[in-house]
């Protein structure tokens, strides 16, 4: 523990850390931007051979995607599935998160581990047995099957995100309301709900975004009319040459726009750094 002061701590003029931040930032922006823009340009290109930029621009791939890929139908299925998963996940997850944040009881550790395990295992691991089971129950291949499968990681995510959120809501507020004569129901509707809305909304949005991007479970359980965007995109990209790349990219743009809008909405509500780990100072 003798960190002897051999020399005075000198502040260098150039902030090396900031330089590093901007370097990595630049690299990430370059790669991600390159990927996004090449997909975007290609989706609007008449054709793109050899040159730096497409040979011309058109919107016909989007119109073709609507007829060939049944985009409206896929978007509808995606909306139903993601919203149902988020809705059910929140409805079941919020009470659980509240209890885990507020109460100490025997077996709490086991319940917490149980609610964490689905996030610690790759979806394929439990997805294959789950899909096999759902096929035997004859719900796989339907939207219900896809919703059920996607709930498995969604619910633990809601609990994981919201437990620290409820922890930081001061319990004194609830106690004060009780002392002032509010019934538990009134405490819930008038005190807890208003305080919890931002966190719950953000968790729901994060679940929607995750479900939108969840490939494995949807891939294993979806049928022809219960595909989400990401699975439809996979099938399109998996069989290149059958369709022009522009048409696949048009679909990718639809997917990208959908998830980006949702994510930006989520970011407006919460600062992601506070969602992951909450620290009391």
């Amino acid at each position, binding site marked *: 523990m003798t960190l002897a002061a051999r020399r005075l701590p000198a502040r260098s003029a150039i902030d090396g850390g900031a330089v590093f931040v901007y370097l990595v930032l630049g690299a*990430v922006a370059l790669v991600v931007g390159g990927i996004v823009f090449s997909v975007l340009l290609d989706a609007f290109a008449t054709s793109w051979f050899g040159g730096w930029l497409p040979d011309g621009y058109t919107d016909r791939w989007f119109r073709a995607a609507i007829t060939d890929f049944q985009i409206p139908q896929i978007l509808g299925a995606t909306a139903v599935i993601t919203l149902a998963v988020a809705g059910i996940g929140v409805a079941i997850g919020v009470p659980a998160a509240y209890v885990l944040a507020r109460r100490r009881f025997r077996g709490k550790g086991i319940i917490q581990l149980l609610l964490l395990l689905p996030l610690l295992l790759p979806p394929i691991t439990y997805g294959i047995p789950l899909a096999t089971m759902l096929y035997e129950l004859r719900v796989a291949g339907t939207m219900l099957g896809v919703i059920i499968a996607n709930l498995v990681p969604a619910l633990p995510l809601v609990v994981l995100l919201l437990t620290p959120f409820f922890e930081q809501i001061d319990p004194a507020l609830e106690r004060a309301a009780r002392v002032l004569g509010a019934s538990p129901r009134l405490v819930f509707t008038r005190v807890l709900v208003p305080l919890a809305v931002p966190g719950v909304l953000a968790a729901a949005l994060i679940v929607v975004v995750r479900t939108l991007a969840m490939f494995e479970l949807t891939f294993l359980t979806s049928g022809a009319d219960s595909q989400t965007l990401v699975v439809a995109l996979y099938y399109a990209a998996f069989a290149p040459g059958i369709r022009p790349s522009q048409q696949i990219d048009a679909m990718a743009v639809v997917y990208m726009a959908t998830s980006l809008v949702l994510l930006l909405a989520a970011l407006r509500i919460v600062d992601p750094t506070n969602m992951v780990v909450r620290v009391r100072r």
Partner: protein
Amino acid sequence: MTAPLARDKAVAPSRPAPRRRRLDGTLLLVAPAVLLVLALFVYPFVYGLALSFQPYGDNEANGPLGSYIAFFGDARERLSIWNTVRLAIPATAIDVALALPLAYRLRRPIPGQRTLTALFVIPMTLGTVLIAEGMLQFLGPAGWVNKALLAIGIVHEPVRFLHNYLGTLISLLISDFPAVFLLLLGYASGIDPALDRAARVLGASWIQRTVRVTLPMMLPGIAVATALSLVATFSVFPSAVLVGNPAGETRVIAFAAWQAAYEHFDYSEGSAIAIVMGAIELALVFAALSLRVGGYRRLTAEAGR
């Protein structure tokens, strides 16, 4: 020994906080979540485990372990484990190594922090499938990267980024980075800046402060980020198919499990491979999480809490 203890309990039910005598009804609120996880996660898992010991077709001759023997007995199948590990571990290591200093620096807000964070988060929304799709365009033989490399004259023919190990690794690096970064940023912003200042006042150099102060404080975060990143990269599937070479060097274990179950309709072997995959992955995750116990507990103990 036990008798007085039992009588004590009968007389006064000793809970940690004996505020209420009746069973707390709010505890029931956690029941739906527990039931759902039991029905949709634990039960299928047990079902899959049982299924994996009921070999199907030719494997039946080898007894209950037939599906496992089929997997481990086939060199090509066995190789899928190695193919997964050699993607997951480098991808995780590189992402954590890049995100760690970045997150540490960004814990003190710099101008445009919110925009920067949002920018890092974008790859997360894109998802592995879209990133792989975009890479086909961007990193392809006629893509911008190869055009730029050819124009500068670094290479004389297009670099093969796609349909091999490199392509899959790149796609994992991109899709995994945001989660690692955000998680570490959360931990970094929880470190009291006064500790760093104190060390600086006491004359610690930049390296000493990093090694003796910052890194031990960040260790729990590093452990969790590594663990979660391993979960994500270990289940690599779509990008291994789309930008990798699923018939060869990127025939990962998730693909092997899917192929057994859905192409050969051998649900027993599919489940067996899935269980093997889960076991290996959990071993890696717990190895990563054990870092946390080592570093953090000792530190807080020393801090005299």
